[in-house]
């Protein structure tokens, strides 16, 4: 990852960044392993992939553009409810449902971005938190539409391409979520390794200097916030479709907080941080909650404290540091 740090021109640097290295290829090949090694865990794997996509969407704004959000579940929930409602009222086609979810989240994300781009830090946390709570309460009060606390009932998905039913083993759910995750990841990767992505990092480091250099930071922030909302909406729609249920919790504060924890665990601003964080968080929850259900959050808390104290850039940041130390010694 740091191999081309010494490159001369920004273009050459970006190109070097955009090249696929062996670790990345191995990572994506490894995501296929559950099909053969753990066929009983495909449902969990599909929810990991969905959470990973959600974390990736947060990474785009938090890790790259420095927009702190405690209400990102708003877009996740919008996508979930849109896809769920479409399926409930007679349009159960998954792919178009996914796009509807993305569209709804995108529109609201675009509208919200005008406020978001004006603030930073603590103010942002409060604004995003407030927007998330408002949306959750709205969904609760629109009982006739959303089913309120009982959750949205009657979501029936059609098979993908009229062929692949969502089965009990989760084979379809995982294949579908994984492909969508990969495609979204490619988009995110392309964005990050573009001049636009580079200027986002510039804004993150110094929001005043970028306009001085001729790059309008608010327009950039609005763009990436909208893109992030779209990705979060897709993740939400995926969850609604693969589980055929939507509850108020998709909009809940807990989900916004969890995804932040996931991203910080894995390492923000590293694309793979959210993915690795999602794997660790979800697997830990599954394992701990099997043994001592009452206390699983204790272990997640302990892990989070340890990571933040000893690996300030997350688990991936720690690994990257280790490997560069290893290389400089060799």
């Amino acid at each position, binding site marked *: 990852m740091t191999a081309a740090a010494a490159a001369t021109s920004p273009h050459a640097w970006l190109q070097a960044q955009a090249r696929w290295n*062996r*670790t*990345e290829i*191995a*990572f994506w*090949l*490894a*995501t296929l*392993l*559950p099909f053969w*090694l*753990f066929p*009983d*865990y495909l*449902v*969990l794997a599909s*929810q990991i992939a969905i959470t990973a996509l959600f974390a990736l969407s947060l990474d785009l704004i938090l890790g790259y553009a420095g927009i702190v959000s405690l209400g990102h579940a708003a877009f996740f929930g919008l996508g979930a409810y849109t896809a769920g409602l479409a399926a409930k009222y007679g349009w159960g086609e998954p792919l178009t449902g996914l796009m509807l979810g993305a569209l709804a989240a995108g529109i609201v994300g675009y509208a919200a971005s005008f406020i978001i781009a004006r603030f930073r830090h603590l103010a942002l946390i409060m604004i995003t938190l407030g927007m998330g709570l408002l949306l959750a309460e709205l969904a*609760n*009060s629109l*009982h006739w539409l959303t*089913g*309120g*606390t*009982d*959750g949205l*009932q009657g979501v029936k998905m059609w098979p993908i391409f009229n062929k692949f039913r969502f089965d*009990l*083993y*989760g084979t379809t759910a995982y294949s579908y979520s994984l492909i969508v995750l990969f495609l979204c990841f490619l988009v995110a990767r392309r964005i990050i390794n573009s001049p636009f992505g580079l200027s986002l990092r510039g804004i993150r480091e110094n929001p005043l200097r970028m306009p001085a250099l001729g790059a309008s930071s608010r327009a950039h922030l609005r763009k990436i916030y909208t893109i992030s909302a779209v990705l979060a909406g897709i993740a939400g729609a995926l*969850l609604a479709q693969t*589980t*055929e*249920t*939507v*509850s*108020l*919790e998709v909009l809940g504060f*807990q989900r916004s907080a969890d995804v932040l924890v996931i991203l910080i665990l894995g390492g923000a601003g590293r694309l*793979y941080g959210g993915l*690795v964080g999602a*794997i*660790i968080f979800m*697997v830990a*929850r*599954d*394992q701990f*909650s*099997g043994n001592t*259900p*009452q*206390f*699983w*959050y204790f272990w997640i808390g302990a892990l989070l404290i340890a990571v933040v104290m000893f690996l300030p850039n997350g688990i*991936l940041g720690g*690994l990257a540091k280790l*490997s560069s130390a290893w290389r400089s010694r060799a």
Partner: protein
Amino acid sequence: MRKALVAAAIFAALGSGTASAQGTIKIGIILPYSGQFADGAAQMDNAIKLYVQQNGDTVAGKKLEFIRKDTGGIAPDVAKRLAQELIVRDKVDILAGFLLTPNALSAGDVSAEAKKFMVVMNAATSIITTKSPYMVRTSLTTPQVNASLGTWAYKNGIRKAYTMHSDYGPGIDAEGAFSKAFKEAGGEIIGTVKMAVANPDFSAYVQRAKDLNPESIYVFVPGGAQPAAFGKALAERGIDPQKIKVMGQGEITDDSALKSMGDGALGIITAFHYDPNHQSAMNKKFVADFNAAYGRNPDFFSMGGWDGMHAIYAVLKKTNGDADGEKLISAVKGMAWESPRGPISIDPETRDIIQTVYIRRVEKAGGKLVNVEFDKVENVKDPVKAAMKK
């Protein structure tokens, strides 16, 4: 490579599923063991454990094996996944537990698809049992209790009521069932107020009710901390339940609520299917055993768990240990038994519970506030599903 190794190592750490052994029946219990509903889950789980302890873990020659899974609160996506995993990975024969409606609804889909027997031990929204033809409920339905209260109120001379309820699913259902039954009997609802679910300060709402000076007030708030806050608001605003009748579903005066409400609760009338203070030899023994094992009174969560276990044991005996979903559900239809809460049975048509709804009043007995049963409505079916059929 590193990331690949990490991922592979994590997946390897998961281990693989266990094969189903001969002569055992596996029961998967899905409950919110952590989070804000953990206390209810513990009460239910303790009753399940107590039942197994007293009746042995072998039924019809088969050993029962329990696998417990935590949803961490309201999480239908998690509940559905856990149900799927329990069936495909752990090969369970029976799904049980289910404290919360959204979780029960989403797991119902899995039960229907996998044709597995499912026992809902608490979640109380009417429609839940329509989700799977293999599902039975051993707790209560919200309309069952509240409609009974509405009809009872009119029969006992109450003509006008003001209703107050938390603005969320169960509150809307409960108030709807009460109002409908009360109006059908001939009563009049003089006003309704929806209260924010997350707002335990009721003084403004209670003041509004007091200004109207109604003959009676019907109230629904979620169990836990809110009943106490409501009781406090009643006392502060000077509403005396002995003069203006205050009615509601049983949770508002359960053990823990009464403890913090104090004497302001005296006179509140509630309708419910179970209270540890129910007078019967069977219940006395149940409460004593529960106290001996866990040091506290059982509650309605415990009751649902207890009878759910009874249903599982009884059907397995009837099918001679055959855990096929089809056979179990046809065995449970119409089954009737004596429970610590009184006589109960399973409606053969809806697979829902038929039971006695008790009308209770908060009174002081031996220096302690208790719910004293002074009237009852027998053989109550779920009114919503009965109306759906018409």
